[in-house]
């Protein structure tokens, strides 16, 4: 797992640099929450929301691969912006618990204004 996370961080940074330019991924992690959600999250510096909009499909494909390599089958993929700005500070893939499935993926609108929903799989 350790190697996969390290490689995932490196690969995401490399791919984003190819797509967008100078992007820094200072940290990547696999997380498990008390509610039951698990996921993969990468902190970012230098990425803006317009680039995410343009490259959504490519970013999703990269994140899905990395996520599965660390054992997380993503149900949703989203970007979190710094509130009130267009700076994207985290990319997250998440396998949702029942509760968060309703709260986070159950609305047509993005759940919050700082969240850009990049992919939402239908409930299995």
């Amino acid at each position, binding site marked *: 797992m350790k190697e996969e996370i390290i490689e995932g961080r490196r690969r995401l940074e490399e791919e984003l640099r190819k797509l967008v330019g100078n992007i820094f991924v200072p940290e990547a992690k696999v997380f498990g*929450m*008390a*509610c*039951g959600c698990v996921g993969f999250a990468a902190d970012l510096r230098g990425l803006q929301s317009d680039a995410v909009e343009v490259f959504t499909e490519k970013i999703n494909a990269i994140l899905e691969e990395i996520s599965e390599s660390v054992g997380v089958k993503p149900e949703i993929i989203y970007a979190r912006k710094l*509130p*009130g*700005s267009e700076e994207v500070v985290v990319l997250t893939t998440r396998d949702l618990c029942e509760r968060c499935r*309703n*709260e*986070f993926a*159950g*609305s*047509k*609108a*993005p*759940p*919050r*204004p*700082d969240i850009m929903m990049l992919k939402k799989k239908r409930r299995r």
Partner: protein
Amino acid sequence: MRLVVPHPGHFAALKEIIEVKEAEGLNEVVEVYMAGSPEVMGSGRATLHSARIADIKEQTAYAHQHDLKMNIVVNPSCLGGYHLTFEGYKLFKRYFEELNKADVDGVTVAEPYFIELLRDFSMETVVSCIAHVDSPQRAEFFEDLGADTIAVDTNINRNFAVLEAITKAVNCDLKVLVNEGCLYKCPFRHAHFNLFSHITSSRSSLMKAQSPNIFSDYYFDKCISMRVRDPSQIIRSPWIRPEDMQEYEAIGINHFKISGRANAVNWIINCMVAYARRSFNGNLLELIDCPSELRYTFHLDNELLEGSIKQWKTCKKICDECRYCDELTAKVLRVHEK
């Protein structure tokens, strides 16, 4: 009953809130509120959307088409004195003019000076709960300044003698927040609002790219830890069950505000439905605007809380002598088992 509902700020969320309100026939919902523009001033609570005037205008028009009022919340507890500079005065006065032109129905503020400034406009001037109106005397001060509506300090939500006295002391409208999950008499309240007021303002040095980030939200982390160690603090928090709103109507308060504009839209919709229907089954923490960690950790059985309002209505708030909430905690609150 008139119910005021939070709106996270993005147009898609407003459409979804209204869609559910209309589909469910929730006529009690009369107003939505959203944060103003961080470029102009911060806010007492987390602000996840940067609403431009054009955006506010468009959303206000949409709300009006659906018979809903729009209130813009610009309630920092601290502006660092900027509002009392000529530059600040001009900026804020202009902003209120723009909101007025955008056909906004009301503005919620905490700063007394803004209440006077807003006298020049037809918009409803609402005093935020962050102004801590907790007595008839304080309510009279704010009414004299120009308040049309006062959201009272949540710390008096369960002090019916004071609430009733305020209703008698002022002619302006009063409203209570129903689901704020803050600690009763929280020692961090003022400091936390001040912190938010600065970090949600684009003008703040803390928002600048080169500034040192704060190392943590001390108040937030500390507040969760305190409640995990002493869960009775969750019970003492001054939230109001949907079933208990009638007790407030009985003393002349029929204006209720749901807090939580930084939450997910579906969370907001669930709260709106529960409070509009005055009924909820399950973990009451699902409705309380509190850190989600508490929802994950504890289950607060709403049905078992039936009748507790009778004690709280007459409670002297001397917890050390009373111990009602400690005993109630043992009955109604349990740790989730996983």
